[in-house]
């Protein structure tokens, strides 16, 4: 019951942010590779549920409440080319099914930057970007594991980095449009804190985030799917997000 109320409370607060944003100036997409009309600052909030599995140790976990804040800056190089720098900070707690009573708290920090090219077609616009992204995952556990062999979920940090390819496809009018933002990191390099653990190979990451853009991007509401896949490894999250942005400042 308490948990339900707590969730409802969070939902209300999230909605409040949306109402606050309605009074804001024109905003842009959650993913910063929308056609770069002008310089823009984007702010977003995402709340997702996640699952993760690591086959080498037969581990799996449900991550019921992943929260992310995103701030990104987007600018123009010329009429077609633009650039972006995005910072994201996320956090979530989850229970370790193999060690009942033990919880892990993860903080994820993401940085990615790149250049994009944009264009338009009748009834819509597109943008494609290429850049580089780094994801840092820091882990705190509520208990120590004194085993000779480290366990994946107890590993104090993980780093994934690689080339990022972004896309954004927009259909609609200035008042209302539908946007599909995507991000693909075709090969991620991975590093783990524990030398005794093997990070899965051939890691790739995909994010798809369809959204509804209102009043020329003043407010965006959408749903994001994100998946990191590798040999014997999978990390999946999905959930709604809300974004506001300010342009031409």
């Amino acid at each position, binding site marked *: 019951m308490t948990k339900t109320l707590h969730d409802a409370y969070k939902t209300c607060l999230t909605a409040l942010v949306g109402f606050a944003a309605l009074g804001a100036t024109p905003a842009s997409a959650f993913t910063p590779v929308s056609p770069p009309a002008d310089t823009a600052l984007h702010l977003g909030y995402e709340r997702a549920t996640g699952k993760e599995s690591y086959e080498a140790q037969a581990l799996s976990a449900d991550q019921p409440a992943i929260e992310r804040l995103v701030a990104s800056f987007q600018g123009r190089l010329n009429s077609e080319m633009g650039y972006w720098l995005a910072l994201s900070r996320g956090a979530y707690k989850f229970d370790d099914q193999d060690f009942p009573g033990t919880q892990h708290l993860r903080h994820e920090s993401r940085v990615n930057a790149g250049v994009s090219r944009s264009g338009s077609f009748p009834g819509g616009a597109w943008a494609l970007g290429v850049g580089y992204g780094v994801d840092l995952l820091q882990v705190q556990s509520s208990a120590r594991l004194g085993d000779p062999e480290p366990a994946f979920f107890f590993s104090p940090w993980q780093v994934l980095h690689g080339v990022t390819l972004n896309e954004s496809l927009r259909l609609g009018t200035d008042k209302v449009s539908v946007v599909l933002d995507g991000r693909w990191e075709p090969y991620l390099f991975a590093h783990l804190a524990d030398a005794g653990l093997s990070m899965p190979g051939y890691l790739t990451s995909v994010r798809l985030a369809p959204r509804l853009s209102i009043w020329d991007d003043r407010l965006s509401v959408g749903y994001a799917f994100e998946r990191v896949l590798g040999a014997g490894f999978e990390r999946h999250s999905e959930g709604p997000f809300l974004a*506001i942005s300010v342009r031409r400042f």
Partner: protein
Amino acid sequence: MAVRNYKHRSALLKGLLGLSVVTATGCSVLGFLGTGETFETTGDVQHRAFNVAGDVMVPASLTAVAPLTAVAPLTAVAPLTAVAPLTAVAPLTAVAPYRLLSIGPDSPSDETEWNDDGTVRFALVQVIDPMTGEVVATTRTDVAGRYQLRMVLPGRKKPYVVQIILKNRNGDVAGFLAAPMGINLTSIRDKNPRLSVSPGSTMMTFSSLLMTEVYEGFDLRNGFLGIRSQRLATLVQSLPPTTVNDASQLLSDSDTFENIASFDAFVSDTATASAVMTANVKRIGQRAAGTDNLSGEQSLGYQASALGLLVEKLAQWKAAGVSNQSRIFERAADEVDLRNVREQAERIQRDLPPIPLPTLPPPPGNSEIGIILK
């Protein structure tokens, strides 16, 4: 222009304010603007979960005789009585006979029955803590005779006995299977052990019981329920599921269980073989200790160590593809490294709780059917 800039700044501030409210009100693990909540690590991991799975199976030849529901009740009330003297290794203490009794499912949802390959479907699987004699978990096998249990341990180690009681349609006890399960979760990789409950594992369980003071209280009507013994717990702890699983496959495939035609014969042969196994375990312990003047704790340490290493040797043979051997226990006992036995015996003794062990019952007299292993 100035008005427009003012509007933009105002909107930006509103947005920041909204996001700050979400993260700063304590409802977010992100903390204020993502600065983050922190955890206090309170100590070592307290509980560990594991999943044990396996098959429940009887010798396949039994299934050809009749359906389980129509099998005659066991007539072997005390099948080990006659074979108990076999455990004697002069001049070491031997154990007295004990009776085999068991309990069964109260109201099975589906009729327990065996399949043609010897697996038993819808059988009640009970997990018993030998320190308390209580059932700590139950489950039923599926239609293919497989079971799975998820359990949580306070710590890394815990001994259990898994037992299955088979009853016929009239509710009479028709068969009994058991397996020792010495859980030791030293690594995350140990969390999914496999343990089949088979004739071979039953033999190991009986052998463990024969080295304790509680065999006299062992009763077919209760099985291991109500049996509380530090000795039994220590002996079972020395038998990790993976090792037991491999060794029991070797034993189940042995001549002992070939062409078994009744559960009476099965129980009798299992009891005989377990007594021989026990005698060899004692023989290993005796050779490793080099003396018969051992305290109860020392004796238990050597026997538990010897039992674990003997079963480990059998498991190694199974992995190496060794099959049917005559005098399998004697040969395995000869190959066990006595230095390992001594080292492990000392560790086991150190881990024993500082409580005196109960006195073992007086050794049974050697009967005419007994053998003396020297």
